[in-house]
């Protein structure tokens, strides 16, 4: 068989490798710059790719000037709490919407759909005013606040519950399970992949969020990694090696999680996309 229009395999690989280099090059450059001296980082003639001396002082300086342990803790607490809240509350609501009949079901599910269509910025001023009037600014609670419940999570898990066979519940009922027992013991374990996907999504977007922590936790001890970086940029605007060291410190936690759970990350995104 003659196939003239098929791209040679090495050509495909060439394109993919070039693309892959473009994808990771900024991170490599971030890492290399973070170890250079300011002189080396701004030297054009000769241009310096690799630092002649790996300058760990950039990191100790950034760590000295910013309370990174605190930033890690704030970010971790926010992400963990948002993940737990969104999974627990969404799974409960999703099961009810998928499998139970009760008055107002369609109306309430309409609210869920409506929330998903509206850009999140529209909630921000009132949410800020609420946190402010509770006197809760600069707290972990403030960071969690907008993520207490998740319309997206409810919708996503409902799709997973709807895909389960009806017979499961009938069998559970015959065995004498009430609705709560059926939900917790039988149905919940079967949507584990959905909950993992939701957890990853929630963690990723909470981790990346910039505007909310910037607005609500202005105190630098209450900041997250993202919002602290925005501040650090203003403070050291010329010292790029230190800025890069701070960036490396900020992306490392998620990068480690990604390296360990890359399969879950990618499958989580893929399945949720297919379910929506």
């Amino acid at each position: 068989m003659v196939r003239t229009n098929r791209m040679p395999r090495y050509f495909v690989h060439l394109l993919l490798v070039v693309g892959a280099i473009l994808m990771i090059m900024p991170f490599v450059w971030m890492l290399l710059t973070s170890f250079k001296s300011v002189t080396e980082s701004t030297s054009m003639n000769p241009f310096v790719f690799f630092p002649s001396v790996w300058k760990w002082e950039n990191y100790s300086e950034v760590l000295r000037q910013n309370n990174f342990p605190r930033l890690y803790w704030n970010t971790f607490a926010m992400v963990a709490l948002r993940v737990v809240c969104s999974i627990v509350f969404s799974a409960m609501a999703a099961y009810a919407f998928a499998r139970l009949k009760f008055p107002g079901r369609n109306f309430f599910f309409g609210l869920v759909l409506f929330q998903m269509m509206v850009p999140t910025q529209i909630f921000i001023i009132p949410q800020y005013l609420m946190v402010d009037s509770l006197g809760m600014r600069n707290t972990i609670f403030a960071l969690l606040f907008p993520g207490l419940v998740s319309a997206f999570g409810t919708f996503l898990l409902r799709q997973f519950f709807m895909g389960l066979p009806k017979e499961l519940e009938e069998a559970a009922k015959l065995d004498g399970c009430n609705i709560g027992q059926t939900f917790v013991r039988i149905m919940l374990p079967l949507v584990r992949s959905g909950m993992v996907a939701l957890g990853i999504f929630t963690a990723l977007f909470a981790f990346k969020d910039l505007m909310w922590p910037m607005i609500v936790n202005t105190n630098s001890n209450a900041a997250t990694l993202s919002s602290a970086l925005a501040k650090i940029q203003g403070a050291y605007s010329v010292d790029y090696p230190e800025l890069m060291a701070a960036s490396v410190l900020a992306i490392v936690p998620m990068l480690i999680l990604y390296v360990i759970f890359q399969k879950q990350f990618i499958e989580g995104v893929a399945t949720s996309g297919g379910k929506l």
Partner: protein
Amino acid sequence: MNKQIARRISKQTWGEWSWGWFLIAPTIIGLVVLNIIPIIQTAYLSLFKSGDFGRGNIYVGLDNYRKMFSDVQVWHSVGNTLLYALLVVPTSIAISLIVAVFLNGKIRGKSIYRTIYFIPMIAAPAAVTMVWRWLYNEHFGLINYLLSRIGADAVDWVGNPKLSLISIAIIGIWSVIGYNMVLLLAGLQEIPKDFYEASDIDGASRFRQFFVITLPLLSPTLFFVVVTSIIQAMQVFDVIYMMIDVTSPAYEHTVSLVYLFYNNSFKYSNKGYGSAIVILLLAIILIITFIQMRAQKKWVNYM
């Protein structure tokens, strides 16, 4: 006897109802407090002019909207936001689609490529923008250094008002390719292999197969990716915020609706005007989504 059964059934129904309400209660209460009331409140606030802290709000009716329609800054931001979406959405989807098609074949190292392309998605935009700013640096940046090696002049990627939105769009494209690629790849894997085998026998070229089989069968996934990408792009903020300061000469040519909303609401603390801007954003997004839902019937095939 009959009465007893009726009572049992109704007791069962009642049980199901209360379980339903109980299970949805946290989510619904949360949505009402965190989302539904705030929408009404934002609309309400947009009718007020917020004074400096402590001076309270003054009812101004539709003045914020009148001001908005004659505010050049607002029109700039609408234009910038739409242009940003126009730069990012088609390009990123085209590239993601090409990569996804490549990876869908029998190719070595598929999962390594997939893992690498997804990495930009997991990094915080604040950190990513900082390194891009450094790469773009006019005097010391890697990009201008590489350009100088091929004899090109230094380019002011960030400060030049004509270029800065493009530079920002490049970051936007770079960070979203992996995400779209994963979604499209999942869609591609759903297409039955027999379709390709059958058309192989008919002697169709790969190119033709792409347009006759792949695209139509992928259209539901593609539609989802297009809709979410546009909504995401319309809300661009982080990268521009980290890249362009209010005092930059490029500010006017890069400020997005959300950035303008942020500045008005929290920098200049005029929450009334900020609310009016975010209502405008909502209106634009709803119009675009409505148009897409209409257009969907023309090009999306559901099997």
